[in-house]
């Protein structure tokens, strides 16, 4: 979604945002870091622009599940007083206060309290410091007050901040009011206590067929921490990878520096699972023109990153645009320098395709490793699992049918085989032991369809197969019941087919929001 006319300057941007208050969808689109309106703007200007958009959403009454992730992102990893204050203010317009939001507000309070600069919402890029001005700490305290009973979990932490004597006179008054509100508020029953809204999109997963191929960047040349050149395909094809983005001049310690330090912890986790040779890692810089090999090597070393043939710090030797488009990176630039970026980590499959992404909010190392292990395990599944799955299912089903028609005596066996004489099997001796084997195979088919049914959440198939098996067994006990035998075969065939189709469909559902 692009707006028709790009604003030539900040004044025009302000008019545009004010005009878009009636069109919240367009307004929300302006929160994308890669929006062209942020091209070639200084970082401080981008801060003002994004802050103004957040305040525009408040005026529009449009803070919703869709916009929540942008607000939480600012509280989670923001260090700019104006943006944190604007995010805290915007959160108070969210229609569903929830206990899961309180830790974000508290974390922001702990992070910004030593940079509690005066900010003003009176106008765009306003710096008035009169009584109408506010500050990030004051806005966050107001937001905790707004959360009221939902902020009970952070009450001890807030009390400790107040006791520390660190708050300014004005903020202290706000803090005492907030404490009073939270203490007085009655405990609320929350059905979904401590859960973020289901629509909060910060982690995505793509099943095999929905993954975009990496052809467009296959030939992109990188240089690693030692100056060794390697293409995207050479490095990223062959085994799954965990990829993060960073740049050495990032001045937010909660973003790039922490991301690369967390990558080092990811590497330790891989080592502890003995997967460091099967899953590789890479940290790619957004700022390849400045981040030369020596610079990225030292940056990695200072954060304990393991660097070798399978684990590399990388810079592109050419333009970063192809990479930016392929990963749909949440980043923008002024000339070659980053002016704003989000937190982003990716899991690539063995073909270099994006299998999962973790965006905006801080990601958990174990969760990323677990996702990479899933991708590693699917390596065999993706390439060869579908056909065997169908084949094994059909063989097990055939076993059920064979049970029905299994001959009772050597004479019947000879009669059956004589019908197959042209296939040359008429000499096979009667084998009574084969019947229990076929029954075991039939039971194995039942177990298999039940397991698949539980995995896909679709149980019709397993029920049909079980009914079919019972019917076949009943027909064997009541030897004259052909109807029961036929019903058993039909039910088994239908159930098995349904289970296989459900299982395949569940793999094909496209981009899935995990949380």
């Amino acid at each position, binding site marked *: 979604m692009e707006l028709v006319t790009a604003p030539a300057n900040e004044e025009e941007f302000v008019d545009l945002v004010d005009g878009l208050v009636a069109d919240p969808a367009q307004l929300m689109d302006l929160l994308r870091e890669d929006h062209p309106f942020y091209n070639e703007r*200084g970082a401080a200007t981008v801060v003002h622009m994004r802050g103004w958009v957040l305040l525009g959403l408040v005026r529009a009454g449009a803070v919703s599940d869709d916009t929540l992730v942008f607000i939480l992102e600012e509280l989670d990893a923001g260090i700019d007083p104006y943006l944190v204050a604007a995010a805290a203010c915007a959160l108070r317009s969210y229609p569903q206060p929830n206990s899961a939001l309180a830790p974000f507000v508290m974390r922001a309070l702990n992070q910004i309290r030593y940079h509690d*600069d005066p900010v003003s919402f009176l106008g765009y890029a306003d*710096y008035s410091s009169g009584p109408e001005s506010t500050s990030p700490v004051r806005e966050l305290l107001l937001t905790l007050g707004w959360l009221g009973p939902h902020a009970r979990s952070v009450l001890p932490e807030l009390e400790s901040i107040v006791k520390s004597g660190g708050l300014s006179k004005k903020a202290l008054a706000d803090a005492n009011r907030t404490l009073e509100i939270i203490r007085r508020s009655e405990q609320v029953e929350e059905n979904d206590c401590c859960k973020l809204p289901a629509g909060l999109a910060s982690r995505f997963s793509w099943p095999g067929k929905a993954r975009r191929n990496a052809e467009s960047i296959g030939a992109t040349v990188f240089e690693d921490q030692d100056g060794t050149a390697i293409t995207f395909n050479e490095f990223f094809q062959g085994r799954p990878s965990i990829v993060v983005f960073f740049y050495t001049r990032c001045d937010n310690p909660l973003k790039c520096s922490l991301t690369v330090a967390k990558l080092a912890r990811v590497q330790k986790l891989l080592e502890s699972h003995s997967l460091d040779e099967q899953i590789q890692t890479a940290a790619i810089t957004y700022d390849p023109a400045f981040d030369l090999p020596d610079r990225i090597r030292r940056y990695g070393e200072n954060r304990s990153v393991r660097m070798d043939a399978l684990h590399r710090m990388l810079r592109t030797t050419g333009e970063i645009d192809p990479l930016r488009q392929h990963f749909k990176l949440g980043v923008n630039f002024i*000339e070659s320098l980053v002016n704003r970026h989000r937190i982003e980590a990716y899991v690539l499959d063995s073909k270099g395709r994006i299998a999962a992404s973790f965006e905006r909010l801080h990601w958990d190392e174990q969760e990323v490793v677990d996702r990479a292990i899933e991708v590693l395990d699917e390596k065999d599944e993706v390439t060869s699992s579908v056909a065997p799955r169908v084949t094994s299912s059909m063989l097990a089903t055939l076993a059920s049918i064979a049970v029905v028609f299994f001959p009772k005596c050597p004479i019947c066996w000879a009669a059956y085989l004589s019908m197959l004489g042209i296939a040359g099997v008429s000499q096979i001796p009667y084998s009574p032991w084969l019947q229990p084997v076929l029954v075991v195979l039939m039971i194995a088919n039942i177990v298999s369809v039940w397991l698949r049914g539980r995995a896909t959440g679709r149980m019709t198939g397993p029920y049909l197969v079980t009914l079919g098996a019972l019917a076949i067994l009943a027909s064997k006990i009541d030897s004259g019941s052909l109807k029961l035998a036929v019903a058993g075969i039909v039910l088994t065939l239908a159930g098995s087919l349904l289970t296989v189709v459900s299982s395949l469909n569940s793999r094909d559902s496209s981009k899935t929001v995990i949380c």
Partner: protein
Amino acid sequence: MTTKKKAAKSSRKMSSRAAMAVATDEKATTKQRVKAMSQAPLAVCETDDNLQKMLAVVRNKDEAVQVRLAALDTLATAAFSAVKFESCRNDYIAALREVAEDPSQEIRESALGLLAGEKDPFVQKKMLEGLKNPQKALVPPEKALQLLSYDVHTEAYAVARDIVKNPPSETAKQEALRLLAADAKSAPLFEKLLRDKDEKREVRQLSASALNALNPDKLQEHAREILLDDSEYEDIQATSLTALKRFGDEEELSKDKALLKSVDRLSTEAKSAKYKRSAKQFLQTYVDKDKDK
């Protein structure tokens, strides 16, 4: 005992609280107050009353500039301890922004410098405005560029390039180049300036240093060529020698006969003893290394 005598007595060995009292006492002399200010940082954020008194001194245009500057220093020292200063920061930053447009240039520059150190967006906005429109400038262009260089993420590169093309002063040009030393796109500009014998020495040395940060391989290339050039200035050759010595490839340098010959000439013919010494050290490192092999 008069106030002045009391102040004089107490200023000899004052507790930070006593120093605070003298520092904010309008009846004490400028000298006494400035001295007391230097002992007051610990007390300035002890109470809100102390903070407001100190901020009042900074804001008061009728106070002596030395006293106001000393008050700014006191606050800056106190602010260094971020945890202890937490409750005071908001009012401190507001006061700095207020006096950033003070009639006194010294006060303005001091306040703007303190804010720029905090990467304050207000200062960045004012500095860029002043560079684009000199009538709005709060400080001279070289100072504005210096303050902008504290944060690489400003929009200053384009303005700095314009200043390099049409510098209002030599100092402004050099400050603009210092700022551009973090701009990867400016590497070709630094190459050009480094090789331009008509440029001032400071500009060429600054270019060598910037090029080393932005494109060290290019600097090695140019440094070698500068050393091979007989008509090049000695001090620029010495800078090139240092660059090769610190960042060059040892293996390649020890095999480079032409280069070693030029350095040998510098070690005997240089006018400055310092440069001769530097060249000899270089030869000791690389010629001996070659012999060892």
